[in-house]
């Protein structure tokens, strides 16, 4: 599968928790997490996001984040990467779960975009 998902959060446990929830619905979708800083502190790391994007076995990546500065780091990482990255300004848990569910059944991209548009909150 050449499509995957990245979760970017300020808190390590939030990222891991969302991923765990998504795996309930999407066992075969590649999911990366870049959450928290390396010393366990709260924040997002540009380096960790770029590394996660590059390591994910997917060429098209759907990206979900929690708060504004996560988005800025995500945008910078996506500018540096050759991969196609769609960043969604949507409710993190609901939209990541929705995307995972739809990617698992190989739904059309237009369908996924449409479903996610309804979850836009930021």
């Amino acid at each position, binding site marked *: 599968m050449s499509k995957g998902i990245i979760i970017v959060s300020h808190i390590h446990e939030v990222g891991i928790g969302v991923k765990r929830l998504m795996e309930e619905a999407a066992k075969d979708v590649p999911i990366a997490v870049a959450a928290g*800083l390396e010393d366990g*502190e*709260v*924040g*997002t*790391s*540009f*380096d960790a996001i770029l590394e996660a994007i590059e390591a994910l076995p997917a060429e098209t990546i759907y990206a979900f984040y929690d*708060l*504004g*500065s996560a988005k*800025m*780091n995500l*945008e*910078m990482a996506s500018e540096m990467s050759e991969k196609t990255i769609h960043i969604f300004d949507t409710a993190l848990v609901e939209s990541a779960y929705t995307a995972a569910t739809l990617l698992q059944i190989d739904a059309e991209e237009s369908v996924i975009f449409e479903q996610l548009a309804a979850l836009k909150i930021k």
Partner: protein
Amino acid sequence: MFTTENLTKSFYLFHEKIEQQKNQLSELDQAIGDGDHGNNMSRGMTAVIQGIEEKQPETVPELFKVAAMNLISKVGGASGPLYGTAMLQMSKASQTTEDTCQILTEGLAGIKNRGKSSEDEKTMIDLWFPAIEKIRQGELTKKDLVAFVERTKDMEAKKGRASYLGERSIGHIDPGAASSQLLFESFMEAGVFDE
């Protein structure tokens, strides 16, 4: 005009000022943000100084780039991508011009673009924008910088964590404007704005 010498000195001064005012910056951030601006900037500027000492950049664009990469990698909060993008744009601009105002204006454009923000939204832009205007008129003073920071007190935050507070953000100084004051003071003391 930015020179390798005065820009290097500016970064050392900025690092020193951030270290001295780390706690005050975090306190400002506790009121309307997540309370870590001082620590984040301290971590970032410590990395910038390390980067300068390791790489010994010899040109203005290289110096700005070392600062950008370390701030982007090390800050953690919103100020990492914002200051980092500003420095990256200033690195690019300084490859083609020596005009201080033009270089700073490109940095400001980077901040606006990255933060999808503009003036009067209670952000670092409310320091950068009027400060650059004053430099253009040839008369930026430390007093001006203090006044610009004070002015953010009456603004309602429209961007970042502070915007969740809405009207309750009024009455507090924006921490990003406060740290930017220190950056411009550093440029000033290092002689960047001298004729």
